[in-house]
């Protein structure tokens, strides 16, 4: 039975190895200097690159983070600092529920909320992704703050520092590594999200042209290329875009997880 348990371990690592190897080898064949810099040519048309998708992903993720990070961090502070409040336990439960809302539903929500008003746009995508990252950041911030030893807080309060100042200086600065971990992992997570973007930023072949316009994004490009019937032209591009995406995401994950080891509850994301 014990060997069966190890067999399960090997069975789970085979897909991981296969995904990485296939993406690297098939993706490398699409790589060239112009692949990074040129606009996306239409399906089935040779040449062109993936430049707008890289740009679009960076812009959408940056905008989503600038909305999501402050809200998530302050919500996490609330849950950790006022954990006895009745609202906090309800909020914590709903936050966990929100973490598990299917990403496509967030896409629909973004659509009803923003696309209906201003059309397919970067803003709509960023809001959908921000809603996805807020619960993750809230959770990891709360856990990071809870790990701060009570003695730190007591020392500050004994010195006559008001509680809010204690929280914003002493507590936050000792929890900053854990909070940064949560933020980075949630950034990695939303960078690869496709379903909400499909319904909100729509995808495009051209460079970014304003926050209220549709734009390209790497995951959307991967999906579109993979649905193309032109196997020789578009499928390698799908793998190339995947390689860039997987490189960004795994780099963030490996660096963060290596830097923080097992201290923070990263496994719950």
């Amino acid at each position: 039975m014990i060997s069966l348990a190890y067999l399960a371990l090997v069975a789970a690592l085979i897909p991981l190895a296969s995904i990485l190897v296939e993406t690297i080898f098939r993706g490398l064949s699409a790589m060239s200097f112009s692949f990074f810099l040129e606009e996306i040519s239409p399906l089935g048309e040779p040449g062109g690159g993936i430049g707008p998708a890289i740009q679009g992903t960076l812009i959408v993720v940056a905008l989503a983070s600038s909305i999501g990070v402050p809200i998530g961090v302050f919500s996490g502070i609330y849950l950790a600092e006022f954990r006895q409040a009745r609202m906090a336990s309800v909020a914590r439960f709903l936050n966990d529920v929100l973490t598990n809302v299917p990403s496509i539903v967030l896409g629909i929500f973004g659509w009803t909320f923003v696309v209906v008003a201003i059309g397919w746009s970067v803003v709509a995508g960023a809001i959908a992704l921000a809603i996805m990252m807020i619960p993750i950041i809230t959770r990891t911030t709360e856990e990071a703050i809870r790990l701060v030893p009570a003695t730190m807080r007591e020392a500050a309060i004994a010195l006559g520092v008001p509680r809010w100042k204690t929280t914003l200086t002493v507590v936050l600065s000792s929890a900053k590594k854990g909070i940064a971990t949560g933020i980075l992992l949630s950034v990695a997570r939303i960078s690869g999200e496709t379903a909400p973007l499909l319904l909100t930023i729509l995808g495009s072949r051209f460079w970014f042209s304003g926050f209220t316009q549709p734009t390209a994004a790497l995951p959307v490009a991967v999906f579109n290329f993979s649905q193309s019937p032109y196997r020789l032209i578009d499928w390698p591009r799908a793998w190339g875009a995947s390689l860039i995406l997987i490189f960004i995401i795994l780099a963030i994950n490996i660096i963060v997880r290596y830097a923080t080891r097992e201290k923070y509850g990263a496994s719950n994301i």
Partner: protein
Amino acid sequence: MKTKEKRPKFLSNLRSISKRKLSGDLSFKMFVTLIACNIFIVLGLMFFQIIQNSWLSIQTYGIGFLVGKTWQPFPPSSSSLPSFGALPLIWGTLVTSAIALVLGVPVSLGISLALSEFSPKRFSYFISFFVELLAAIPSVIYGLWGIFVLIPFLQANVYPYLQAVLGFLPIFQGTIRGPSVLTGGIILAIMIIPTVSAIARDVFAAVPNSQREAAIALGATRWEKAKVVMSYGRSGVIGAIMLGLGRAMGETMAITMVIGNSFNLFSSFLEPGSTLASIIANEFTEASSPPVYISALMEVGLILLALAIAVNGLARLIIWRSTRKVREVGLV
């Protein structure tokens, strides 16, 4: 009552120190409370918006939407109305999630036992790092891998033998197609493994050592000891499985790319199908003309949201209750 004993009362003492500090604290509390309200607002608004947008479809099709078997946004003759029914989608979601659980849960439990019970700490830390990387890979890349690597492999090396051995079962009959419900289930199984195994590992790690020591003292083998651990962490494991179920039901891109996307009340798992999530991903951006079409897709989203919240809420409740036992004794 308990929490009051645990925490020092310096907060209430602050009140007497100075009014200036108090007002700073109060406004800080109000500020973060206000921001934390986003959780309620987002969830409430999400329900409101999605219900409001699917109202047209709810009114038009009523309860029949849940049991209807046709999906005709553009009816063949102009005189008839478009008709929508979500039964095949619900069926697709349930079957693929069930396949994912049947295949994924034993593997996940094996992994978490191997990591928490049988392995040296260092090794298990190293390996769980890789298992967690599985969770970090975007779903669209799973889908791409599914289309170009998994489907050809299954089609050539697995499905023919499966049909030869188990072909007498109706679920494995019919023509072998690559993109099928079974392929979707297999990809979901791979995707839920990191979720389920990470939580199950934490549950097993929270089992008090006295349980293990008692088992060893009674002469248990390593496997029997693991069984004791599993039965102690039973409810936590159930929670982990349900969380995996929630993830499988809501998963969109990977399954959209491998399930074949036919609206089909399938009886064989080798047929193509659709799920609640996949039909939204597939049709939403093209569904512009009859307003009831968008509304029907919204209602599909509403069903998905309700299912996901029910399953995940229950899972969290079970996990919370199972770890509370451990927390109260003070072992964690």
